């Protein structure tokens, strides 16, 4: 076994003996010195998780969240030196834990918080030129076959729980209203003008985005979204335009509108 393999085994497990061959100048306990590294690793990664999931933390309370974060860090230390997406497995980890029995909304809340972080760091894209849209409206018969290009930050989620309301209740300083956690909710998450926004939407609206992301045409996506679900096409298109997350339209029979 190499030295660094020994270090790795001991870093996340305080019950393990420290690697062999460590010395101190004054004969002080090497275990205490090695603990500085254990502490740096664990606390910094727990901090990264706490930064990404502040509402989960508020929900659970600091002590319970810390224990959860510490368990996650030990189970799934980061695989990349870029920590921007560290915690991608957190929601599933929570779902598999006993916490999900008592806090069933927690995994979806974690997914919503990760979606916010992803939206913050997603790629940049210019919104579509309104003049191009006007040109599209001049040939309405082509509308069903168009494909919409969406901003990289736009994501859509739904949950069996009121995670959007719970999340929103932890953002402002207004007194939180009484929230029934067992009401299903859906949301779009997007970045507009530097800010990430979480917009309460309907189940069909979420399905609409998923269909467009899969490359379906506007007509197909709208039909799929409306099939047995609450869906408002006008609202969806209005939000896409107002939030500037419609970045292009592809007309297969004519040309690509930038």
């Amino acid at each position, binding site marked *: 076994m190499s030295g660094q393999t020994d270090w790795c085994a001991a870093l996340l497990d*305080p*019950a393990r003996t420290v690697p062999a061959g460590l010395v101190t100048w004054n004969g002080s306990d090497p275990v205490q010195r090695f603990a500085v590294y254990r*502490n740096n690793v664990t*606390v*910094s990664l727990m*901090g*990264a998780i706490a*930064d*990404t999931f502040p509402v989960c933390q*508020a929900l659970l*309370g600091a002590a*319970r969240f*810390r*224990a959860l974060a*510490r368990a996650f860090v030990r189970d799934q230390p980061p695989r990349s*030196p870029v*920590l*921007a997406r560290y915690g991608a497995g957190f929601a599933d980890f929570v779902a598999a834990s006993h916490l999900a*029995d*008592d806090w069933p909304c927690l995994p979806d809340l974690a997914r919503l918080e990760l979606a*916010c*972080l992803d*939206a*913050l760091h997603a790629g940049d894209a210019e919104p579509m030129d*309104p003049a191009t*849209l006007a040109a*599209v*409206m001049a040939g*309405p*018969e*082509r*509308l*069903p076959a168009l494909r919409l290009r969406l901003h990289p930050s736009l994501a859509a989620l739904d949950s069996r729980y*009121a995670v*959007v309301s*719970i999340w*929103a*209740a932890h*953002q402002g300083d207004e007194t939180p209203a*009484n*929230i029934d956690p067992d009401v299903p909710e859906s949301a779009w998450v997007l970045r507009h003008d*530097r*800010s*990430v*926004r*979480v917009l*309460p939407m309907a189940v069909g609206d979420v399905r609409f985005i998923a269909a467009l992301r899969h490359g379906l*045409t506007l*007509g*197909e996506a*709208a*039909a799929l979204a*409306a099939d047995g679900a609450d869906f408002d*096409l*006008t609202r*969806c*298109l*209005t*939000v896409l*335009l107002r939030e500037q997350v419609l970045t292009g339209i592809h007309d297969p029979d004519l040309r690509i509108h930038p």
Partner: protein
Amino acid sequence: MTTTANQTVTAAALALALGTALTIAAVPAGAAENGAKEKCYGVALKGKNDCAAGPGTSCAGTSTKDYQGSAWKLVPKDSCVTTASPTSPTGHGQLAAFKDKS
């Protein structure tokens, strides 16, 4: 018409929706249709046009000590109130005190 029944929405319906959306979106956003629930993420709420940076990498060590707790144990499920609670913003009541075995 290029539509097929049940598989796509008609051109007329799309044109109406898009036309309406263009009109609504052109109006300056005031009381938007999303109403009071629409929230911005991070420090933008604190009135700063700034980003909330994600988890950062740092070359600094930490003096906060929290690495020893190993097992994590939760109180039994039946001690948790899972109905809506007027005192909790989450709707879920609080679990009893958590024990961190360290």
